[in-house]
């Protein structure tokens, strides 16, 4: 992990040098102190009165239209585990940075000092009047399912948990193209999900919405293959009802055993388990059907090396890493999903909107450019964000969850303008040296 060590050194040096990664910068002109009479009291009172007449106007008359909170309690941060809310803050800042740079979204971190899921829900709900949306981050499973499900139901602004929806959306986008290349239909594919944490549970739920045949999906967790008669089912019913529901719906063949048994004749493997290498053996991949699809999403090291999967006959291989082909990357999803959702003032992000985002992401690669080593766009292709945002906005409008519906073309132009501006502002601050160059690491 020489590369990891190197960027770690830079990050540790840069963090105190810049004092974090974000600050608040005004976006209105201040010609003289007299202007404060417009932006603040007494002028601002007139704006307050407008909003008093219709609270929805807070989306047009304040920054609410573009402001989201990145909220965590630090109970499952990256691969570091439960490191607490303070230690989670650098990650939240980083997330907010990506929101701004790739999606033009004003995101700010909030770290909550509670491991009580009900208190978490209450706090976030209370924040609704000042927010355009909520991005939940790095919350341990299964609490993350409970918190997301409740907040999605009880708030009337978009709520997103990236470890669930972002990963599931990016995975599905990759799967769409992998299935296309290998001549498969989603509804006929036998899909094995290895690992049953936030990512794969969300992927399974999204696959159901996408039209996969749930009876052909097999989940494998640390105990083994999940099925309706597994001995720990009653325990799951009480402690992880999300996994329990999937156990009832999936694996109607009632395959038992471990991953090798699950892979027998399977078309697709999506591994989101624990870092490898060596977790999955080549001979297990050989047991799969002809030209199988293998996604190895653990970070920083995939469950097996991608070339091993290829050697064992895998036709399409994807990982979570940027240094191998086909990076299944949440950052392709969340900035543009929020861009689209915020621009139509969406009341929620529906599963239909997530599906549309995945489709748009997959379709961004034209047929003639689609190869086993290029099934997912990269972050370099920044036009993809505009396409996904437009698709999400259009879908929100079609599903009647948009407070201000927009067509695909309207949002396409708007998203492009906002995202471009966001990049240009940062570049100009760098050019003018208000943002100093990165310090050298010796």
């Amino acid at each position, binding site marked *: 992990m020489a590369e990891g060590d190197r960027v770690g050194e830079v990050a540790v040096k840069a963090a105190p040098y810049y004092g974090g990664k974000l600050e608040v910068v005004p976006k209105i002109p201040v010609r003289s102190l007299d202007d404060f009479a417009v932006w603040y009291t007494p002028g601002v009172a007139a704006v307050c009165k407008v909003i008093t007449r219709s609270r929805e106007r807070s989306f047009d008359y304040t920054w609410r239209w573009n402001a989201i909170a990145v909220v965590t309690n630090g109970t499952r941060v990256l691969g570091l585990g439960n490191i607490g809310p303070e230690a989670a803050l650098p990650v939240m800042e980083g997330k907010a940075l990506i929101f701004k740079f790739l999606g033009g979204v004003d995101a700010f971190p909030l770290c909550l000092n509670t491991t009580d899921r009900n208190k978490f829900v209450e706090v976030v709900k209370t924040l609704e009047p000042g927010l355009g949306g909520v991005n939940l981050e790095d919350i341990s499973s299964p609490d993350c399912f409970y918190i997301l499900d409740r907040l999605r139901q009880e708030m009337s602004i978009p709520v997103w948990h990236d470890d669930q929806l972002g990963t599931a959306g990016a995975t599905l986008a990759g799967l769409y193209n992998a299935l296309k290349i290998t001549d498969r239909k989603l509804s006929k594919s036998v899909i094995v999900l290895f690992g049953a944490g936030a990512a794969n549970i969300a992927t399974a739920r999204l696959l159901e919405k996408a039209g996969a045949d749930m009876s052909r999906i097999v989940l494998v967790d640390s105990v083994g293959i999940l099925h309706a*008669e597994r*001995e720990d*089912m009653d*325990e799951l019913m*009480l402690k992880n009802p999300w996994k329990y529901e999937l156990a009832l719906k999936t694996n109607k063949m009632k395959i038992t055993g471990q991953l090798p048994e699950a892979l027998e004749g399977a078309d697709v493997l999506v591994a989101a388990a624990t870092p490898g290498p060596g977790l999955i053996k080549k001979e297990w991949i050989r047991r799969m059907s002809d030209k199988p699809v293998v996604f190895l999403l653990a970070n920083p090291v995939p469950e097996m090396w991608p070339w091993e999967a290829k050697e064992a006959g895998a036709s399409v291989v994807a990982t979570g890493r940027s240094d191998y082909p086909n990076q299944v990357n949440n950052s392709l999803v969340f900035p543009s999903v929020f861009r689209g959702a915020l621009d139509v003032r969406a009341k929620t992000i529906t599963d239909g909107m997530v599906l549309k985002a995945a489709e748009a992401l997959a379709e961004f690669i034209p047929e003639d450019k689609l190869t086993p080593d290029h099934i997912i766009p990269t972050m370099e292709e920044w036009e993809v964000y505009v396409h996904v945002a437009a698709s999400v906005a259009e879908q929100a409008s079609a599903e009647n969850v948009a407070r201000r519906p927009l067509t695909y073309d309207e949002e396409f132009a708007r998203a492009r303008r906002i995202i471009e501006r966001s990049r240009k502002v940062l570049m100009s601050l760098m050019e003018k040296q208000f943002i100093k160059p990165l310090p050298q690491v010796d």
Partner: protein
Amino acid sequence: MSQVVFRKAEPRDISRLVELNTRLKRLNEEFDPLLRVRADIAETSRTYFEKAIHSPDSLVIVAEDSGKVVGFIKADIRERQFYEPRMEGNIVEFYLLPEYRRKGVGAQLLDHTIKLLKEKAEIITAEFPALNEIAVEFYTRLGFRGVVSVYARES
């Protein structure tokens, strides 16, 4: 899911009953730390069902789907020493595999059992751990209510 049928348990069912009873007790353990499952539960369950199947004062009914036992009820007939009505059908174990829940199978199994119990009993009671919310909800929905409380304190 095919048709679930109900019948009296036979000696050939005992291994499966032991397995399902173990699941039931482990579920109770999830609800209440005062219900820690014994290590030898398989042996004690076996003796328990062997006795119950052959006893005129017990009734073990199984739910069967395509030849596979997927749930059971065990009940006892007993006489109330001080109250009327005198003969009581007392349901003491009830377990149904997860796949068969929320589909009315449990209520049917209970119905079937109560019909048989009523040949000998005039009042039907059910015993279950106070903290087992699923049982509380199930019996309450079917018109049962609390009659006796058993409180516990360790040492």
